[in-house]
């Protein structure tokens, strides 16, 4: 590690909108609506005399989020007031947590772009309410929309354990998957349900003396691409400053999405003293052990653990396990296997035909009109040789259209393979007699000629002949005749 090869240290503060039906401290709905200021009440508007009442669901989902990050959930937490003035903060303070947060000391492992396993420690997970939205109209002033104001957020703070912009993207993508999996948040990025502040600096060993650059914080990034690009920009900026010996200051910066550069926020914004103190309107909140245990149990297996189990239990490649879990296909897959199907065949079908169908129709697995048992039946018919793989695809096409049993379709359309020994023998004889020249070619060593003969049998049976058996029959007849 020298000036030329310094290591970035990156820490994140991530705000996630929890999937509650109502806001954190009032009954207003949280569903995203376009019409401004239609989901507001005296409480979230901070009208004089209104008081907050904590939404129990927000606590449950916050705890879920903390458990998913393997953090320690405390038996008691306290809401505090974070005091600052901004037009979209109607009370003049935000209800948040500082000294007694909901959870601390978690960890999240993730896979980087090269398939390597990495970890980032989670410093804390706390609950807070969202602010409203300021819409600045150049020349016309600022409009305020309080629909979002008071929405329940979990703030996840990592240690500076991430070392590249790409790793940060991987971490965030997998965090999103985790939060969706647990149901803590739907993480709709386009609705700003995940926003991120990043802290970055470089550690180096320039000229033999270890050192580090001053931390810069880039605020309020709302897309993964934005986070990655902003970090790339910042790492490069720090690197160049280091090389040139330019001083850097500890500062807050903003990301300009258009120009793809960060720029310094005015220093005034940094000199906040938030004057946190316990919110006297809200007593300390006890989180009973039973609630934590119950949520832990209902949360079930987390995606990473499931990937590892799938590849171990069904002997799948880690790529296959990734696709199944990441694509939300793992439940369906496991149910197909539970119906008795071969795991490899089931995985291939689910990732291939099934997944292609979902993509083509742009539907989720929940909307698929096929039951796991029906796919198991189809795979079973292939396995037993009753139908060929090619016929199976045809049957599948009918199953997804009509939603009926594969067996019914096979019977209805007479698609069962011809596996009858006598019938295949007579067909093979016919073909051998009709194509004596080809038989001769085969005998003279042209292996490929046999393929032509099998093709002829297939033609006579509209593809229903069992190709394996047809093949064997032909060899048998030709070699027998040769001996005569």
């Amino acid at each position, binding site marked *: 590690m020298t000036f030329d090869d310094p290591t970035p240290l990156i820490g994140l503060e991530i705000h996630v909108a929890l999937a509650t039906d109502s806001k954190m401290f009032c009954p207003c709905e949280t569903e995203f609506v376009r019409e401004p200021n239609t989901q507001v009440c005296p409480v979230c508007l901070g*009208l*004089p*005399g209104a008081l907050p*009442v904590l939404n129990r669901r927000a606590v449950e989902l916050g705890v879920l989020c903390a458990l998913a990050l393997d953090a320690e959930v405390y038996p008691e937490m306290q809401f505090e007031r974070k005091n600052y003035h901004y037009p979209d903060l109607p009370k003049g303070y935000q209800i948040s947590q500082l000294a007694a947060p909901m959870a601390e000391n978690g960890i999240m492992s993730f896979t980087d772009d090269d398939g390597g396993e990495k970890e980032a420690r989670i410093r804390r997970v706390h609950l807070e309410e969202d602010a409203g939205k300021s819409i600045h109209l150049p020349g016309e002033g600022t409009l305020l929309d309080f629909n979002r104001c008071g929405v329940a957020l979990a703030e996840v703070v990592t240690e500076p354990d991430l070392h590249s912009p790409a790793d940060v993207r991987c971490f965030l993508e997998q965090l999103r998957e985790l939060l969706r999996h647990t149901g803590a948040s739907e993480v709709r990025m386009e609705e700003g349900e995940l926003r991120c502040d990043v802290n970055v600096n470089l550690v180096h060993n320039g000229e033999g003396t270890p050192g580090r650059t001053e931390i810069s914080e880039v605020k309020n990034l709302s897309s993964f691409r934005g986070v990655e690009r902003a970090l790339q920009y910042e790492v490069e900026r720090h690197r160049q400053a280091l090389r040139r010996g330019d001083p850097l200051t500890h500062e807050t910066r903003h990301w300009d999405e258009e120009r793809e550069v960060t720029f310094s926020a005015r220093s005034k914004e940094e000199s906040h003293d938030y004057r946190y103190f316990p919110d*006297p309107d809200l007593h300390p909140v006890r989180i009973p052990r039973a609630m934590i245990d119950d949520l832990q149990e209902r949360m079930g297996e987390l995606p990473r653990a499931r990937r590892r189990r799938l590849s171990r239990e069904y002997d799948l490649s880690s790529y296959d396990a990734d696709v199944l879990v990441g694509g939300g296909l793992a439940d369906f897959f496991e149910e197909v296997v539970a119906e008795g199907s071969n795991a490899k065949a089931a995985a291939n079908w689910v990732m291939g035909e099934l997944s292609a169908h979902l993509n083509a129709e742009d539907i989720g697995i929940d909307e698929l009109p096929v039951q796991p048992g029906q796919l198991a039946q189809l795979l079973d018919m292939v396995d037993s040789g009753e139908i060929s793989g090619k016929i199976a695809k045809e049957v599948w096409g009918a199953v997804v259209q009509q939603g009926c049993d594969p067996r019914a379709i096979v019977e209805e359309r007479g698609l069962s393979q011809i596996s009858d020994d006598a019938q295949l023998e007579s067909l093979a004889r016919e073909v051998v007699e009709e194509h004596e020249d080809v038989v001769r070619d085969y005998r003279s060593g042209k292996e490929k000629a046999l393929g032509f003969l099998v093709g002829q049998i297939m033609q006579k049976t509209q593809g229903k002949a069992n190709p394996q058996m047809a093949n064997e029959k032909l060899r048998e007849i030709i070699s027998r005749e040769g001996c005569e």
Partner: protein
Amino acid sequence: MMTCDLSRLTLMQMRELIDAGEVSREELVRAALSAVAEGDEVLGAFLEVDEEGALAAARAADNTGGQTGGVLDGIPYAAKANICSRRMTTNCASYMLADYRSPFDAKVVASTGSAGGILLGKTNMDEFAMGSSTENSAFHKTRNPWDLDRVPGGSSGGSAASVAANYVPAALGSDTGGSIRQPASFCGVVGMKPTYGSVSRYGLIAFASSLDQIGPLTRTVHDCAAVLDALVLRDKRDSTSISHPDSGRFSESVAASGEDLRGWRVGLPREYLGDGIDPRIREVVRGAADGFTGLGAEVRECSLPHTDYALPAYYIIASAEASSNLARFDGVRYGMRTEGESVLDLYLNSRGEGFGPEVKRRVMLGTFALSAGYYDAYYLKAARTRRMIVRELEQAFSDFDLLLTPTTPMPAFGIGERVEDPLAMYMADICTIPANMAGIPAISIPGGRVDGLPVGIQLMAPRFADERLLRAAAVYERVTGDRGANPLCPGDVPTEGVCDR
């Protein structure tokens, strides 16, 4: 004169007459309105009177037979201007909210309404409840009905004066450090701060959330209990609200309180009778102690050594909470707005012009106490002091059923006498602050006179023992208490029947 006579009745007397069909609700409201019309131009108890609304409500109740069983059915009452109501403005006696109309009723307005009470008007107060004389109102001064050159106390001075002047039998106030009890003492009426959490704060414009509590001002203890029967309810919109074990039974309990206090142990903490207390007030309290002894109670002196720390700790905690509670008044969404070049200028101009000097003083004090580097030395230390005061009082209540103290260290002072000296003004709350710090119930009832002015005595009880407090106060009032006359509305409060109708 008939109407004036009606408005002089106590709540319980009005109750009997309405129930007997001898007086209509409209007659009572008209009597109150004409009393206000006659006297309030001079007295200044009200900021706004809702003549039309009150009469309409009274007529509607008369037509339908009223609120069956409602303890306040047909009773006109007043509410302090920091209690939100859809009718009239809710301005906290501040320019900041001069024209502010709340889109909702406070829980107490809704529950007095469902008990049949008729809201007559909004009363004057110290701006945002910060003060002890009602002189900090941005709009006008309120005078003491006993002596028009003196203050009525504060911050619920308008509520206390409206009851003392016999406009209404009951008014709602709020008490953060004595703001119900101190003006009750100055105006010779009953004022109670119930156990913290027993009355919903939903719709009370907050001064210091952990100390604020709404309570009644009335002319008798029984009336006070009747109002509490309507007020004390668990409210799920206030997270600090609690279920009170005696909810709805206060009036009943007072009516059955008997004639003596045999077996009661009454503590007389000597720290409340020290140098800072006017010797004539000490005499009144000692006289009251003798009164309790005469009723059969065992009265003993005791010591609460941390009492001296209550005032400084209170001013830090109350101001810290106020600095945050008042942050919402920024000129952006409602209330006073004075434009500026930037958003910061908008804040500075609106707050600079909207708030009076005492409010600014406390916002600055509280902001300082919470600032980085000072938080531990001020806010945290004050919070620790508060816990010590709580423990000390809990300890005292293992030896005593009640504590007896003065309500105020002095009788009502002259208008303008203390406005220039905030510290002298703060001392007016020295006896009342500990009950807020500990969240315990406390009541002030008339205890005697000093130079012809009424002075109150304060009784304190443990948390949730509101019923005990009311019973003891009722017995004392019935047998020994000082009731009645003030020069503006002369004559004793009638104790039976009605004046000649």
